[in-house]
């Protein structure tokens, strides 16, 4: 079997484990691979430099030593399980999931969109992941290395400049108020459960400012944000619960729900189609926010959607296997009045 390219030809070697969870993930991965329980396993590894973490596809126990777990592991690897993504399609796949990732997996399992029998899931309790782009913007130079303590992140640039950040300031939007850092579904856990950053009623601080705006101001913000969209479909293809992809209605000309002209209103429509189609399965994992090359604040939409679904029906996506997505079921006594 050909060695996996992303490992065999890796630019950056991972080296010794930097934390217990990372060590455990490698251990579990090795076991699964050496015992032949999976054909390959998906974790996280360094990209072209140590400040980058990317999805890592591991085929041999040796390659498992390249896997890393640190605050950069934002990629939701569940997306590589969805329809037409796995290669070959019928492989037995191991996958590492954080809390939010696991919810998207649960959502897929609820609708039998992933074959439970063919996956091995390593649960990775999550202390919150950071947005590397925030760091990059703090320099005019290029960030090439990042070092972590539980509370801090130290960035080093190409020219050797270093700067220390509070991890809390770098957390991704949904991480800072995460109620579910611990995987909801996993075969093995890579660490003891962690205490959530937030408990009790859900809150969505990231969208409050926008919510408070007057309609005209919202229009302005949205027109600017979505005017930049290049329709690359990264948001849609990276979305683990957006399963149509090659048949996506956003590409369809019959019916033509959205026009092909790239303009703010069309782009917003384009994005709302995505939102309504993942409603009930989207836990706001933020994969789309991270994937967008133009950094469009998609969380403005999916967080609002989830906030309202929670407010309407107390609904939270992907919590339990026996739960049904919000639009695939109803309750005669839904507390919904006409408006």
């Amino acid at each position, binding site marked *: 079997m050909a060695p996996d390219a*992303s490992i065999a030809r890796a630019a950056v070697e991972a080296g010794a484990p930097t934390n217990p969870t990372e060590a455990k993930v490698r251990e579990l991965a090795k076991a699964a691979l050496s015992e032949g329980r999976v054909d390959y396993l998906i974790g996280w590894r360094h990209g072209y430099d140590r400040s980058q973490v990317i999805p890592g596809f591991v085929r041999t126990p040796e390659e498992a030593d390249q896997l890393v777990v640190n605050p950069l592991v934002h990629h939701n690897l569940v997306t590589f399980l969805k329809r037409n993504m796995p290669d*070959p399609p019928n492989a037995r796949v191991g996958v590492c999931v954080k809390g939010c990732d696991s919810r998207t997996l649960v959502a897929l399992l609820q609708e039998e969109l992933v074959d439970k029998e063919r996956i091995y899931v390593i649960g990775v309790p999550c202390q919150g992941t950071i947005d590397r782009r925030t760091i990059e913007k703090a320099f005019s130079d290029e960030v090439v290395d990042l070092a972590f303590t539980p509370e801090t992140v130290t960035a080093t640039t190409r020219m050797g400049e270093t700067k220390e950040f509070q991890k809390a300031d770098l957390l991704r939007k949904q991480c800072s108020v995460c109620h579910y850092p611990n995987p909801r579904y996993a075969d093995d856990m890579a660490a003891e459960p962690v205490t959530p950053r937030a408990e009790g009623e859900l809150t969505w601080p990231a969208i409050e400012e926008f919510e408070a705006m007057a309609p005209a101001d919202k229009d302005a913000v949205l027109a600017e944000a979505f005017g930049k969209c*290049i329709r690359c479909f*990264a948001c849609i*293809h990276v979305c683990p619960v957006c399963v149509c992809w090659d048949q996506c209605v956003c*590409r369809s000309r019959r019916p033509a729900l959205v026009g092909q002209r790239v303009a703010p209103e069309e782009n917003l429509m384009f994005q709302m189609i995505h939102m309504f189609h993942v409603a009930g399965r989207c836990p706001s994992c933020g994969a789309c926010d991270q*994937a967008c090359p133009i950094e469009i604040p998609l969380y403005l939409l999916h967080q609002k959607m989830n906030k309202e679904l929670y407010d309407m029906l107390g609904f939270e996506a992907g919590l339990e296997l026996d739960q049904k997505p919000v639009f695939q079921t109803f309750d005669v006594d839904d507390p919904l009045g006409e408006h």
Partner: protein
Amino acid sequence: MKFLAQEQLQAFLGHLAEESRVVVPIKGDDGVVLFRPWTAGVEPELDILLAKQSAKEYVFRQSETYLRYGYAMAGEAAASTSGEDVHAAAPEDDPEARAAAQDAAVTAHAGLKVETVNDAPAQVIFGLRPCDARGFVQMDNVFGGYGGFYFDPYYNAKREATTLVAVTCRDPRSTCFCTSLGGGPADTEGADVLLTQAEGGFTAEASSDKGEKVLDFPEMGEAAQAQALYAETVKEQAATRVERAFELEGVRENLRANIEDPGWHDLCMRCISCGTCTYVCPNCYCFNITDEMVEGTGERLRTWDNCFNPSYTLETSGHNPRVVKSNRFRNRFSHKFWYYPEKYDSLLCSGCGRCIRYCPTKIDLREVIRTLGQPHPDQAAPAEDGEAAGVHAQTGEDL
């Protein structure tokens, strides 16, 4: 060699803006740098960062309406038809006029009204990188009638009206590899003017008549020796900073040889099949054509397309020669380093590295070329190869 003092920059842009739209890299509130129309007082982001999107958008629009048409009663249409005359008027050697004539001819059909849209305001793209400028040269081949191939009136009208003012890449990124492709951080190919950071401003060199015209700015003096020297060192140092990514020698042949290499599957595994790399690329030019019509009134659009799009090369029959991700993945690199070179005798990549930086999963073009652009061991993968078998199962194609 002229010299543009830092404090003259705004005045200079203002001067350019008198006669044309000026497009510059601008850092938005969200810290994202994009090429956008300049307005007085706005500071162009010339320092380090590559703009997230290449400047190609301003010549090869992401979506461009080039035809408007409408259904009308035969009577009206007949009245409006003057297609033949236009056709007669079109000189043989003027492709644009001929295109216009064809449109006019279409309107001769009763009941149909057709109007070409081809707005091409004069514009200066200021502050793009040499790699971006070089990208235009490669697109020029495709749309400019190279070797008697298709001449595209819409692209060329805009290209014609556009002046490119490039800035030397003082601090190339770790993902830059222009030098591996025969370019360089101070390359002038495609650029009309090259600015280079020097003490207190920029040295400015015109490399075309358009460039000369742009530099015809009274307040701009000649560069002092020191400034010229400084600029030279900047250029030299920059060149040394760009890492050597791979050897170009033999890449075209090896890609052909490795076309069925399982390595394509290995490499594309983390690809999410989005179009980011192609849309931020200064060279990629694939497009799609769509009619947006209501009640017989509508417009014909040309929009960017990309080879990762699952419906790319989807045929009317429903068959798609590139049925799986790896097929489409392979196309992008083969196109840049094999198909295009064979047709146009140059590369379809200028080494800006955007596709690497902005890929959601950091797929690395250099890695791909290093792997499959070179003769490599997996080439003669045995038939019982698990990977090959898997692929076989997926595509139904014999690898």
